[in-house]
């Protein structure tokens, strides 16, 4: 969407006047204005996806307030955006707490996730004991999948399964041909799972693992 030099749009984020161009999302406009909105599944090279919901903000339009994902919501004239509020903070905290049991490494978050959890006061162990799930060190943000599809065009990694059984898996036939020379997803993975569990020639999680019930 970037680079589309459309009409200028003015709207408000956290009380500040922000300029944007037609076709930009709130997240993009905020980024240009130097206003930070956290996001886990967003990357400037891939299309908006809307899976993590961490980038949720309050959008007020015609007197009505609703929660929207800023990575997909288009900038509109007159829009009033609030990036922080009790409602938004509660969503971000709950999302972090909910995804934690799946995403932790050795009982803790790493990197950006850790910083976010601290900022929003998320108790990442809240549902750990209750769910007793094996951590796959994956929040299913889909950045690897979309990077491979949209930027590389190799389709060597994808989603398998549905609902709570959704997983990310390599397709060995394709991965064995293209991955060693690319490693694009290694850098993009927010939890570092891919780099740790695959090396371009060996893949620790493939569609065969999923079909065999090992994922």
């Amino acid at each position, binding site marked *: 969407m970037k680079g589309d030099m459309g009409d200028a749009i003015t709207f408000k984020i956290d009380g500040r006047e922000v300029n944007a161009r037609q076709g930009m999302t709130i997240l993009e406009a905020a980024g240009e204005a130097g206003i930070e909105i956290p996001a886990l599944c967003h990357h400037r090279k891939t299309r*908006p996806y*809307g*899976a*993590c*919901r961490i980038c*949720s903000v309050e959008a007020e339009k015609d007197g009505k307030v609703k*929660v*929207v*994902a800023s990575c*997909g*919501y*288009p900038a509109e004239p007159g829009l009033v955006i609030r990036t922080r509020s009790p*409602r938004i903070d*509660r*969503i971000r905290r*709950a*999302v972090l707490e*909910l*995804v934690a049991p*799946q995403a932790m490494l050795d009982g803790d978050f790493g990197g950006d996730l850790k910083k976010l959890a601290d900022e929003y006061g998320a108790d990442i162990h809240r*549902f750990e004991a*209750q*769910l007793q*799930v094996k951590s796959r060190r994956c*929040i*299913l943000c*889909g950045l690897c999948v979309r990077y491979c599809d949209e930027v590389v065009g190799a389709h060597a990694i994808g*989603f398998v*399964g*549905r*609902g*709570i*059984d*959704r997983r990310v898996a390599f397709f060995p036939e394709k991965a064995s041909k293209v991955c060693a020379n690319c490693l694009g997803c290694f850098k993009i993975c927010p939890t570092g799972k891919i780099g740790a569990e695959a090396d371009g020639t060996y893949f620790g999680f493939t569609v065969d693992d999923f079909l065999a019930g090992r994922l």
Partner: protein
Amino acid sequence: MPTMVSSLEELESLRKDILSRRDHTRPIITVCAGTGCQTYGAADVYQAIVGEVKAQRLETKLEIKATGCHGFCEKGVVVVIHPEEICYVKVTAADAPELVGAAARKILVERLLYVDPVTGQKIAREPDIPFYKNQTRIVFGNNKRIDPKNIEDYVALGGYGALGKALRRMSPEQVLAEVKKADLRGRGGGGFPAGKKWEETRNAPGDIKYVIVNCDEGDPGAYMDRSLMEGNPHAVLEGLLIGAYAVGAREGFVYVRQEYPLACENLNVAIRQAHEHGFLGENILGSGFGFTVKVHRGAGAFVSGESSALMSAIEGKVGEPRMKYVHTAVSGIKGRPSNLNNVETWATVPLIIDKGADWFCSIGTEGSKGTKIFSLVGKVNNTGLVEIPMGMTLREIIYGIGGGIIKGKRFKGVQTGGPSGGILPEQCLDTPVGFDELAKLGSMMGSGGMVVMDEDTCMVDVARYFVNFLCEESCGKCIPCREGLRVLRQILTDICEGRGKPEDIDVIREIAEVMADASLCALGTTAANPVLTTLRYFGEEYEAHIRDKRCPARFCKSLTSYYIDPEKCTACLICLRNCPASAVVGDKGIVHWIDQEKCTKCGVCFEVCPDRFGAVVRISGEPVPPPPMPGTRVVRKHEG
């Protein structure tokens, strides 16, 4: 050779021609060939009747027709003899000789008539059966008159007349205005005004636009769209054509659920016949308007019923919802304006064009016009598909049409709207059924599933059932829905199994709120509704599970024990022989008791113990009394 129809006049003369070829004095034996009746053997019944008509040399005297679903599926195979509409229920192939003979002589086969369970009286005519009598079957009614594989049946009843009227007598704007005036709201779930959606697609920029039929019905217990598509596919096509004309689309798609093979078959036959008659293709009815339609068969995902997921699936991608801040009506399939409505909505359109918005608005309530088809299932006496005017109360539906609760048990709740809806208790029974009325109570109209529950249903378990359903049927894309459901399922399972904690309720509410606020699509934002409504209306059941470790419905296995009352046991050996775990101890003449260590709580003993003894009881929340002294003999009461 099918007649190509290329003008309004030719359509009218085709209709007259069809009617003139038919002998109206001849009785027609119709066999319901909907999926429900097919499972009861409708194909065999049909063949037997055909064979019998031949054998009795009555080919010239009787006509036979396989029709769509009548709705009273519980009584299948349903056979109706026109024009008197004599209705026979639970017909088998063996009944064919008597049935055919009687039809030819215009007498009744008394033993096959429907017996009213309330009055005990036999009812001969289908419209007089209470199940049908209290319905208003304007959309669904033609199912029983039509052979869905024969376009002539549809045309004979005035079919494609509304299309002709729209194409030749009305401008697209006028058609749109009529649908808007009728305030037709989407029958698939949310109840969004169809006219508004059409207008959005019509006004959206772009030369190529699409119209889509959503036939991915998947709510547990619901099958209205299936029966419409199987029984009257031309009505859906005609509605779609009218919609395409109004919004300016020349191409359409029908997305049919993978599990609906008969709907696919009948739809494909209908499309072929519509092409042969010129109702599809170029220059339809000489109007210059052209339209084609493709059938897209689903691959078995519930979430694909969500509009953006469905459009992704049609594009050949995985059926996953995407953000719809720019509506699919503006940017849908391949980024082009795409108007999607469900089967029932489309099938209603020809009626509005034919009879006018004023007529349509005369039925229903202020906010919900027209009729709605529900699949009335669960613990009611009469189960099946019912079409009611909006505004009828839940009580009238459940007791008036459904005939009340099975075995005279107590009504406990009615689930409407599937996994996105809620469960409404007795105090809501006098609510008029409408989009806004149900939403106000925390439930929703949904696509029309209506599951009736009696006193033996545990509401915490029902909530768990729906959450579990969605754990498997969510796409798993966004975190609030996927992980929220995962945690909700665990909490509800814990409560059902006696591990619930008082603070669980607050956690449920918090997660439900975040799911409603932040999920990507409507599946996620509404996924907690079954939990929230059961908490709202049956909160004391949650409390009993958590605080007293008691299941009031005595359903949850972990909290329920089976016990044989030694005073009532007649030592008849029935439960002892049927127990799969050999947990029933006793002998002939010796009072039986259940070894609680061995008991797997399957409930077989409870089921098989004859009602007149009622010796097996379920206990929850209190200790099981100690067993009788080994070898206690039955004391038989002497009569007189």
